[in-house]
């Protein structure tokens, strides 16, 4: 069953069409990754899911409810721009945010449990303004999930986190999914999206350009990617037929190739010593860059 359905949804701001004819279905219990370059319409789409913005056309259905504001209590939302009351203590803040979502009578117990899980129990009665940035981000995350919503929408939840806190939050997200929540999050970190998401959706210039499991998406782009490690490095790949878009990672080069791979390997061996030659599917990062790479004349003033 799909917990969220967007049908032909569009939203414009003045002359800018932020979201264009977007349809999307999010199945229950999955982790759905929203990717796309800055300004592509991710946040606008998430805000429409939250009924913070109303679509100009199209329909948004949340948990079978065609009047999305009615489902607000079932959706937790962590916006990209974080906001906490600085002069409130942590427990009072979590209680307030929880009550705004009509959290049940177990709210206080859940607050204690989650503060303990995040190693923040000692900070429960401290003012928010005394917290470090990492702690504040964890509290912000807790304020989103403390009412145990069925759907959790996280806009860039991992940005700015150090590796330790990132791991804590990543585990929390996985736990929530295990407990039955559906999680939608937007990210710029393709590695995180690849590791965590069951399904990935990419929006570009307001339109949907990718939607599916990672396998489905990569399969769509075929096995046109080669990873090569040679003694001569990137130099060895110059002016070879069929080689395109060489990305030099230093020790390893990644390239797109169309043609006979056996012939390419032969040509390379003639030029240098080859240590690694692997034919693979393009990474999510690679697919993202291919889609969102500026056109050669894009950005130039006419």
């Amino acid at each position, binding site marked *: 069953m799909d917990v969220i359905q967007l049908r032909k949804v569009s939203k414009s701001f003045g002359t800018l069409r932020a979201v264009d004819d977007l349809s999307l279905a999010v199945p229950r219990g999955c982790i759905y990754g929203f990717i796309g370059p800055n300004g592509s319409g991710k946040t606008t789409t998430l805000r429409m899911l939250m009924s913070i913005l109303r679509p100009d056309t199209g329909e948004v259905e949340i948990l079978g409810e065609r009047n999305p*504001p009615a489902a607000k209590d079932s959706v937790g939302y962590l916006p990209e721009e974080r906001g906490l009351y600085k002069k409130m203590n942590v427990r009072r803040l979590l209680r307030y945010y929880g009550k705004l979502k009509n959290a049940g009578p177990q709210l206080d117990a859940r607050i204690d449990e989650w503060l303990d899980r995040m190693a923040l129990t000692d900070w429960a009665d401290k003012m928010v303004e005394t917290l470090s940035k990492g702690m504040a981000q964890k509290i912000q995350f807790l304020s989103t999930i403390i009412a145990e919503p069925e759907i959790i929408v996280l806009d860039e939840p991992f940005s700015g986190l150090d590796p330790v806190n990132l791991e804590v939050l990543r585990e929390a997200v996985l736990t929530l999914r295990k407990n039955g929540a559906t999680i939608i999050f937007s990210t710029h970190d393709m590695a995180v999206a690849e590791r965590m998401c069951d399904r990935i959706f990419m929006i570009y210039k307001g339109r949907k350009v990718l939607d599916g499991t990672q396998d489905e998406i990569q399969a769509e782009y075929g096995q046109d990617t080669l990873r090569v490690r040679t003694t001569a490095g990137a130099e060895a790949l110059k002016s070879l037929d069929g080689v395109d878009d060489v990305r030099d990672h230093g020790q390893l080069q990644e390239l797109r190739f169309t043609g006979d791979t056996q012939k390419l390997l032969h040509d390379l061996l003639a030029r240098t010593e080859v240590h690694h030659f692997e034919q693979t599917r393009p990474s999510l990062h690679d697919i993202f860059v291919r889609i969102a790479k500026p056109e050669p004349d894009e950005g130039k003033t006419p």
Partner: protein
Amino acid sequence: MNKMLLIASNEFSAFVRSKAFIISVLFAPAIMGISVIIQKAAHDHVDTTERKFAIIDATGQLADPLIKAAAERNDALAATADHEALGGPFTPELAEGNSLPELRLELSERVRSSNLFAFIEIPANILQTNAPPDAVRYFSDEPTYRDLPRWLKQALTAEVRDRRFASARIPQAARQIFRQLDIPVNIEAMGLVELNSESGQIEDARKVDKVRAFIVPIALMILMYIIVLTSTPNILNSVLEEKMSRISEVLLGSVSPTHLMLGKLIGCLWIAGVLALLYLGSALGAAHYHGYGDAVPPALLAWFAIYLLLAIFFFGSLFIAIGAACTDIKSAQAAMMPVMMLVIMPLMAFPIILKNPNGNVAVALSLFPPATPLLMTLRLALQPGPPLWQPILALVLTCGTTLGIVWAAGKVFRTGILMQGKSASLREMVRWVFTK
């Protein structure tokens, strides 16, 4: 509804925990305390400071009698225990010099260095009767102290009159008769006579009491002004803080903009209610202490409550709209100026109402919705009060305008609350109001 009340209680508790509230609370007993202290001080304390003054006498005849009159007054002062009516002693001295401008300067310097309290200059023609004489000039750097010039006027008038009588060769006996005949007529301001419905007796009118006639109405209006000014700008700070700290979007993930705004208005209303209870409670307590417990009838209190509610919704909505449309404190301060003017304006217009509470200007001003809460309350408190249709019409007009303002502010709030970067111009705000 629950969420609105939750937001309201959050607003309220944030205010209650703020320094502003502590100051506001302290203000309440201060009202009562100050009134008691002032009354006590005025009653007990007698200003017995000696005041030296110099006389420049161009007539060469009036300084001596004036010095003598001052000495008589000082002797009487020493002899009586009732200092309250007389105050401190006046000690005159004769000032002489060749050049009048230099003499004036020298005396002015002495006043500045507190060696002298004041000096007067009696013109040469003060005794003439064929044309109005020049005025006696009184020089002082404390123009608010009126006892000395008042006494000087009285003493000089008596002396000059005697001399004019003498120069007109009017006999002593006639002068005495004239003084007796010259007693001025006194007018005493009274209220109206009423028929006591219980006893059937016609009750005598009461003397017009300044406290009842002026101080209570003005105090009531100023209390409402202080409550509006303490509670409503608070809502702007709250909206702006939530917008600048990006809390608004978190809140909008849980409640609709309309509920968020109404919650804030209700919170503001609670704050105003608590302040009203505190202030009115202490003011009524003070009134009761001074014997004016019946000066504010319940009907007047009811009107006060209704108009206060409307003022909170009216100005609170305007401040919410400004908070939502601005992105920083500086632009918000600039944008709130016109609204502050609307709040302050009635306070500047109230002398016109006092002069003629039921005149055309007073009626028009008190029917102007932003001014209605303060000015209609003032008119209701002033005797005899406006005809009933006027506060009712004002109520209808203010209700209509307030609903319009709340609706427009809601539109601005809905759009502005998520905008970052640049504060909206008035033109943009108007466009948001009329955009579907």
